[in-house]
């Protein structure tokens, strides 16, 4: 639908008030069906505004937009601090009929000053739509009519490219502010609003935020993860972070299946709200894949323990270890035994096998990546002997493969090879990981794919490989790979590790549980509320998404907690309007096609200190260390606070929840 009446978008005016304009108006997906039975009247953003209903009060939309901008103004720079308040007040004066049209000239002058001279995104972007409206549609500025006063509301959402890129929607610029301003605990508190595993995320997150960071258009993205880790470590590694149970206590009980990032986060958030939470996990320690799957040279286990088990226990939660869903424990048991809701977050911990010749189960010298990392974990953390020697060949290109090669080095393998079917540039693993492994002596073999195992007496002797080549670019510009005929060869190996992915385990959720699964064994959920097909049962993390990142799981844990709390208190999990708006921003890539308007003074990105490869490659001590306080302060200066406000103007109030 998207019936544009008039608007300005990307500095281009569209006027369909009399007749349809010749220009193709911008079409934004997800706006008209935003809320059921509640008309979308207009949309106001950083790059313009669009009016979809003829009787929309333009002035009221901008009054509310600037009111929010003035609230968001941190007060550091002059034009934003004073100007946004001035604009808000002048707009309301006019809207309420207390000033004549002459004030519109003053508003325009002020809006120009604020947009032109503000320090960050709030001031630079918030008057832009208003300026477009004043230049092109000044006649639409009229005092608010009685009807408009009642039937028009704005839902305003403030975000930034880094925030929107984060699956957990962490308020990145705000915690960077915290570090910049010397308020490390405040910075930590911002992230702790979302999830407890701040030091973990600060070490191993794949950093969607940094990929979205606009500073990369200058030198390089802001070292967001380094800043987060710095803030976390000021408290966590100095034993300054402690929690006490919520003063408000509900009598509702929640069972969480899986003590991984999703389960821990869900439990943490529910405990903070005052619910009683018990966590069940198959292992003997909390952390899930972050515990078993990430070796301690990247994530020391004491940091992980403080942010998972310790936090949950301090908040009053309980752990039941060695409990496996589907094996002596069922959803029915839980709901019959006094739990009012269940959160399923059992992950995807089954290693994917190659599917090549001679790949029999229980071969000596062959193991999947996750099983290998479990053995590494048992060796490093629980002193179960595990030594390697000779040649180890790891197949895969992701971070799990990197964890395998670097762990294999540390366990004494003479030569460690990494085999990947595409090129180095195509590797999904973190670039830093690839470099670190190379520095530790890992030998890379790109454009090679396994075709079979050479087995002698149930023992792997070598891996058979075929060489690959890149195909021409397809229509979308992507290059695939294909085998080169006649290029079969073998690579001697004492241990072959298949680190090509994981799957959700079968038979955890049983057909009788009333919980629907998809064909990959992933639990089917409502993406907004994470409800499963069974009432009172929610699910999130890898068992829903199939293997995803840590921060995806953290985000799911948080969303599940919001839904479960809503369900327990109000009988129904409702959808938050910001979830919908986030979808609109994503669908229309509204935060993407931006360039840097002004050049910035170049400040090189901080470099985290690392232990020398010679010293680190034979032990599991943490490799990367915190940046210094001075470096952290410097790094925060690189943040440009690319905040923007998005306002959805509807007939009835949206704030609160959606059906």
């Amino acid at each position, binding site marked *: 639908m998207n019936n544009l009446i008039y608007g300005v978008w990307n500095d281009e005016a569209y006027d369909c008030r009399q007749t349809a304009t010749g220009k193709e108006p911008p079409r934004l997906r997800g706006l008209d069906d935003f809320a059921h039975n509640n008309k979308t009247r207009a949309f106001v953003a950083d790059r313009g505004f669009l009016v979809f209903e003829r009787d929309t009060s333009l002035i009221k939309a901008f009054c509310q937009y600037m009111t929010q901008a003035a609230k968001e103004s941190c007060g*550091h720079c*002059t034009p934003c601090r*004073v100007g946004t308040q001035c604009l808000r007040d002048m707009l309301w004066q006019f809207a309420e009929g207390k000033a004549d049209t002459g004030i519109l000239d003053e508003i325009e002058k002020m809006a120009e000053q604020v947009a032109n*001279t503000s320090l960050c995104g709030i001031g630079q972007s918030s008057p832009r739509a208003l300026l477009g409206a004043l230049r092109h549609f000044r006649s639409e500025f009229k005092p608010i009519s009685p009807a408009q006063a009642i039937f028009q509301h704005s839902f305003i959402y403030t975000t930034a490219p880094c925030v929107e890129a984060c699956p957990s929607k962490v308020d990145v610029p705000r915690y960077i502010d915290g570090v910049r301003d010397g308020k490390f605990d405040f910075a930590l*508190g911002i992230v*702790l609003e979302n999830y407890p595993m701040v030091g973990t995320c600060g070490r191993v997150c794949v950093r969607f935020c940094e990929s979205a960071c606009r500073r990369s258009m200058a030198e390089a993205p802001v070292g967001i993860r380094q800043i987060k880790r710095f803030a976390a470590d000021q408290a966590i590694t100095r034993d300054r*972070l402690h929690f006490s149970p919520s003063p408000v206590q509900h009598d509702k009980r929640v069972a969480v299946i899986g003590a991984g990032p999703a389960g821990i986060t869900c439990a943490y958030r529910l405990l903070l709200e005052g619910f009683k939470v018990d966590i069940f996990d198959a292992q003997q320690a909390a952390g899930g894949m972050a515990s078993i799957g990430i070796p301690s040279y990247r994530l020391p286990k004491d940091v992980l323990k403080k942010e998972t088990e310790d936090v949950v226990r301090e908040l009053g939660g309980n752990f039941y270890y060695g409990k496996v869903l589907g094996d002596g424990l069922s959803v029915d048991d839980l709901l019959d035994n006094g739990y009012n809701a269940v959160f399923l977050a059992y992950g995807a911990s089954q290693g994917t096998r190659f599917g090549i010749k001679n790949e029999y189960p229980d071969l000596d010298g062959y193991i999947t990546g996750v099983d290998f990392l479990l053995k590494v974990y048992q060796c490093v953390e629980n002193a179960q002997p595990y030594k390697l020697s000779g040649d180890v060949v790891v197949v895969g290109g992701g971070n799990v493969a990197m964890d395998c090669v670097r762990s294999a080095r540390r366990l004494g393998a003479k030569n460690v090879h990494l085999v990947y079917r595409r090129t180095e540039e195509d590797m999904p693993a973190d670039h830093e990981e690839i470099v670190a492994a190379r520095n530790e002596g890992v030998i890379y073999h790109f454009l090679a794919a396994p075709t079979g195992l050479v087995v002698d007496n149930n023992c792997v002797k070598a891996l058979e490989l075929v060489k690959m080549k890149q195909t021409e670019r397809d229509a979308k510009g992507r290059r695939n790979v294909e085998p080169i005929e006649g290029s079969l060869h073998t690579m001697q190996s004492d241990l072959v590790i298949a680190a090509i992915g994981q799957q959700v385990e079968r038979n955890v959720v049983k057909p009788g549980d009333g919980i629907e699964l998809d064909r990959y064994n992933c639990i089917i959920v409502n993406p907004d509320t994470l409800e499963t097909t069974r009432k009172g049962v929610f699910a999130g993390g890898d068992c829903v998404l199939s293997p995803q990142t840590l921060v995806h799981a953290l985000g799911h844990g948080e969303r599940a907690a919001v839904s479960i709390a809503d369900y327990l208190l109000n009988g129904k999990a409702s959808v938050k309007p910001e979830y919908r708006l986030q979808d609109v921003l994503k669908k229309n890539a509204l935060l993407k096609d931006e360039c840097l308007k002004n050049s910035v003074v170049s400040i090189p990105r901080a470099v985290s200190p690392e232990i020398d490869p010679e010293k680190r490659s034979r032990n599991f001590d943490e490799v990367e260390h915190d940046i210094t306080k001075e470096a952290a302060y410097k790094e925060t200066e690189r943040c440009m606070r690319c905040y923007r406000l998005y306002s959805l103007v509807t007939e009835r109030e949206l704030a609160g929840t959606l059906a």
Partner: protein
Amino acid sequence: MKATINQKEISFEPNQTILEAARANGIFIPTLCEYQSLNHTPGTCRVCLVEVHRPGEGMKNPQYLTSCNTPMTEGSVVLTQTLKIQEMRRFQMEMVMADHNQDCSTCTRQGKCELIDVANAVGLKQVGFHYTQGWENLKPDTGTKPVVYDQSRCIRCYRCIAVCRKIQDIDALETDGWGSTAGVRLKTGVYESSPCVSCGQCAMVCPTGAMSERDQVQRAVDYISDPDIVTVFQTAPAVRVDLGDEFGFLPGSNVEGQIIAALRQIGVDIILDTNFGADLVIMEEGTEVLERLKTKAGPTFTSCCPGWVTYAEKHFPEILPMLSTTRSPQGAMGKMTKTYFAEKRKIDPAKIRIVSVMPCTAKKEEAARLALSEGGVPDIDIVLTVREFARLIRRYGIDLSRLDPSAYDDMLMSEYSGAGAIFGTTGGVMEAAVRTLYYVVNGKELEGIEVSSLRGFENVRSATVDLGGDLGKIRLAICHGLRGTRKLVEAVLSGAEKFDFIEIMSCPGGCVDGGGTPRPKKTYIPFAKKRQEALFTLDRQKKPRQSHNNTQIQALYADFLGKPNSEKAHHLLHTHYKSRKTHNDADIPAAWEELRKQKDR
């Protein structure tokens, strides 16, 4: 690389800002928040606007940019004085003023601030709107900490945070508030548990009266006016070369004679000199150092700087056993006035009120120390910074520059040696001590008197001095500014550096540039070397030049104390320290509360 500013072709370095390039070519752009001495460009005031045309765009696409944080680029055309730019700067200053408390009459700067200068520079003529929500309801800071913050005067330049981090490495300040109430506060919100040591550098760089000393001028006036009170003034070694700035003297002018004349005119009962106390400290501290050297007790740190003592107590309590127990000159003067002086002059000590004039904010905290009081009565009643002292003098309608110099006439506690005089500069305490130590060890004066190896201006200096006798060569270190102090203390604690005697002054430049001295505008300690030189000149003019040759000091020991470090001297002139280190858990509920406040204003 080349560009033009106002039709003048200039060359510049890559990554140089427009402001830097303009300044390098003598072109003025008004700035407010920026502070060149600290390389501080927060970009918050947005006043330093210029018009920029990028190459290839002709003059059609002007950009209006802040020159402090925009890099100059090849071929750019920059205009600094177009009508449009002047108008935008005026508008910006109008906004700066819109939520600034412009009641200059009650401000410690009394209108002589950088804000007024910039308002003049941009030609501000009116402020058409005001935003005060929040700060008009703030209660005045009635606490006791020496430095007070008035949020209503703050322009959010954050120079105070920068100096505390970059120069002092204390990092005691953080931002506070949001929007119109944005400002700064002490970390933890409470002085005692914060890292702050009251050095006052924040006040020195503040462009307005937001960061200031706690004003105690009225209490001094009250004492002077009270006929039952015997008001005693003492002025610190540095004050005589600082105060002149406030009255139009050339930087580094010695106005000791005018200070005495002014105090007489005001009607102060007794005028003493803290320099006498400095000589006394050398006798006590020197004896202490000799004893520690003989018993190989390890290094001794000086203890006359209160910022340093608080720093040691709060940040490195493990070093406290190495601090000299001798009181500071101020503390020694206070005690001697209320005992020895009162006894000799037959004045009831209960009637005496001692006002110290100090170049220092931390001295206010020192005077409030329990260890420097007797039966609940403080040895020092109030401390005025040089800035407050200037205000006091003006209260009596005195223009210092029109006074004829006068001289001390007190026969008990106003004489001082050249050694006492140089206490106010970095290295001065050490040099004064060496002169006396040498004499005590060898029974003769140090040849040449001056110890040039201890002089200089680097933040951390070390020297080896041959004391002769049994002691031979000793290793000395001198540090001014707390950033260097941290490194030095860490090196001493780890054993990486071995010294016998270490002088610390928390303020860069030493007391002559202390946190209580007249505030320079836009530059950090610009007169340090002139003031240091003035003290060295005073030393050269003085007879005697050694503390032990001060006849009033000799009389004090002969008539009252016995000998240095005697039991009586120990009781009256030595003090003790305690650890004030605190461990604060991260207060996450407070962080969330602050976040709520930011979001739900």
